[in-house]
């Protein structure tokens, strides 16, 4: 397929583009920092082809803006999954896929030699023995083919687990897959299952649905594997605004953090070189490489578990735990729902009723800025804020003053 192709070999570059089109719907062609404009044009054309129902074109003084726009609260299938179904392959890959499924169809176990012979006879196609061996090895790993040894000879047969039969063999499983295929934890895998079984999610929609997270599903398995094996990882990041690729070496990953409010996801890890916990944005990480075993993993994890009690969002302080005390005025009789909201959203904070219609929330955390960002969603009910981090508190007061002027001015 010379010239343009809808298919891609690597996912990382495309990840970066989709995020730019989807998240930053305000970018124009010249904003894309690229070596060649043809790369932009090809990526744009692919994105238009994969997500055609969700592409929006707007004109601005800086040029035409192409964006992916979707109300993700009402869709049945994450449209970004299409990107995963665009892997390029060779002619041999597709031929061998269907030839192997065909020659192994009746469940018979065959040797490599027999498979090569049957492919030659049945389809009049001569493949290198090594090519077929490699493909079989790959399919054993993928779970499509099962290998067994009889004496010194390896035999190959097709896995008996047909996707469609498997899903229908268990009452309720198809509905469960429909649901979990749209959830944050590797929903793409569930979606691939539905496609195999010719099913579609026609039951569920997701609120607070950050569909863009699926793009990170390509790197998270490597991180989870490092967590389970107590190993270091290193990251190669996407180019930053300053056009520099940032590499981070020797991080011990501990957990994936996800904010359902801000849409950001992080890998939180221990950085031995600076002796503290740190969070790294997942959407900025291009490649993850696993390193050696970290011998002090268990003791560090214990410290991490203790520190989690003071983690309001994703920040981990190096030294101090800050206290912030917020007093709210809430009409208990008519606004009980606000008290309920505080109760369910306060995380590690302690809520006390201090007087009629007055409630005090005390939060001890590593970062008062994170707490105050959330407190702003209670604008109109905050009586006072006191605490250790003067800067965070001053910013709240300054923001309210600025907003007051902003909205007063606008009304004149």
């Amino acid at each position, binding site marked *: 397929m010379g010239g343009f192709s809808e298919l891609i070999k690597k996912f990382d570059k495309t990840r970066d583009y989709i995020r730019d089109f989807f998240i930053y719907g305000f970018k124009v062609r010249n904003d894309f920092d690229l070596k060649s404009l043809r790369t932009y044009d090809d990526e744009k054309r692919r994105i238009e*082809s994969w997500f055609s129902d969700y592409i929006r074109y707007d004109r601005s003084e800086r040029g035409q803006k192409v964006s992916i726009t979707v109300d993700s609260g*009402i869709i049945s299938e994450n449209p970004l999954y299409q990107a995963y179904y665009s892997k390029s*392959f060779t002619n041999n890959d597709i031929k061998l896929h269907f030839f192997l*499924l065909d020659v192994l169809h009746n469940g018979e176990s065959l040797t490599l030699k027999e498979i090569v012979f049957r492919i030659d006879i049945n389809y009049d196609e001569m493949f290198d023995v090594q090519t077929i061996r490699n493909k079989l090895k790959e399919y054993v790993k993928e779970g499509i083919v099962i290998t067994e040894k009889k004496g010194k000879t390896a035999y190959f047969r097709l896995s008996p687990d*047909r996707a469609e039969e498997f899903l229908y063999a268990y009452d309720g499983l198809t509905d469960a897959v429909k649901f979990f295929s749209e959830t944050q934890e590797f929903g793409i895998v569930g979606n691939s299952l539905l496609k195999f079984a010719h099913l579609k999610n026609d039951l569920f929609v997701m609120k*607070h649905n950050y569909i863009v997270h699926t793009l990170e599903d390509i790197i998270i398995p490597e991180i989870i594997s490092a967590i389970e094996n107590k190993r270091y990882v290193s990251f190669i990041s996407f180019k930053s605004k300053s056009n520099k690729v940032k590499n981070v070496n020797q991080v011990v990953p501990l957990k994936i953090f996800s904010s359902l409010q801000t849409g950001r996801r992080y890998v939180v890890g221990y950085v031995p070189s600076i002796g503290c916990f740190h969070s790294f944005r997942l959407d900025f990480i291009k490649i993850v490489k696993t390193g050696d075993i970290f011998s002090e993993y268990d003791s560090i994890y214990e410290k991490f578990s203790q520190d989690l009690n003071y983690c309001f969002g994703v920040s981990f302080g190096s030294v101090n735990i800050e206290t912030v005390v917020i007093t709210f*005025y809430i009409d208990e009789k008519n606004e009980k729902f606000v008290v309920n909201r505080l109760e369910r959203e306060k995380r590690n904070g302690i809520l006390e009723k201090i007087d009629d219609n007055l409630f005090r929330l005390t939060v001890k955390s590593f970062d008062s800025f994170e707490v105050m960002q959330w407190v702003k969603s209670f604008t109109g009910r905050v009586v006072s804020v006191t605490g250790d981090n003067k800067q965070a508190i001053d910013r709240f007061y300054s923001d309210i003053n600025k907003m007051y002027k902003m909205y007063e001015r606008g009304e004149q």
Partner: protein
Amino acid sequence: MNIFHEIYSTYFRIASEILKLPHITEKSIYEIIKRDGFRDSILFLPQKFIPQNDNSDWGLLIKKNNELVPVTKNKPVEILTEIQKQWIKAILDDPKIHLFLENNTIVSLKKRLENVKPFYNRKHFRYTDKFSDGDNFCNQNYQANFRKIINAVKSHEILEITFISGNGKKICKEYIPLKIQYSAKNDRFRFFCFSVENGEISTAGIINIGRIKSIKPTGKYWKNNISTDEYFQKRKCVNPVIVRISNERNAKERFFMEFAPYEKCTLSDSTDGKCTVKIWYDYQEETELLIRLLSFGAVIEILEPHRFRRQVKKRITRQYDLLNKNCRD
């Protein structure tokens, strides 16, 4: 193993559909590609199936008596891959699985997958701002209600549902459930529905499954077409919110990330770094949008509609007065 592999790809899936047919015409190949492919697949894919004189096709079909037939003898099958098994194993550990599967089904699935390593473990994830009062998915009444709703979504059966509304009122009416909504932040299920009065569709509503007291099947089924698009259209705001975002404190990046789930468009994007965005929303979720916008503080300004702006102004004025009164005291 990786989900980004050609065995899951759109092109392989189309090939599988084509090879399942004992014979096929060129026209049908075009139709399948148009139906199942990407927008531009029609430009690249047909010639890979239709035999070409220069042998540039994939050699999966041959011409026989003016028809195209597969070179393979058997219909291709879709084998459950290792990753897919691992993923099923992982979802079996989620409490929400009890809404779908009976305990004995979970046990037998776990047995079937006993040698499979779960694709992920829930303990590796932490949701920093998940609400603490989510639904109890292990409650048997909840599970039974959930299943009745699922069945009604499939069958369009009209259900008589008694529930306690957000205002604490007991309501009993007939409803047709349309779709079930899950919010990871609230950790709750709700369902979209139309209420039915005198055999006619009435209002578009949404009911928390956790608030349901009882569900009675009516034995009546909605026979006419029912459109979820119409439902969502009925709940969509008449006037979208227009917001101006400054570029201070990385506001643009934070805003576009947080509001990614909303349908929106950028109206203007000036060279001084400010941009103006239009956001459409479900009018019944207006308060949620309002408090999320407020959490951005002074780096954004709500411009329109005036009614929405007035609500913001009212809260800010009240806040300003509260803080200043407190300072004076």
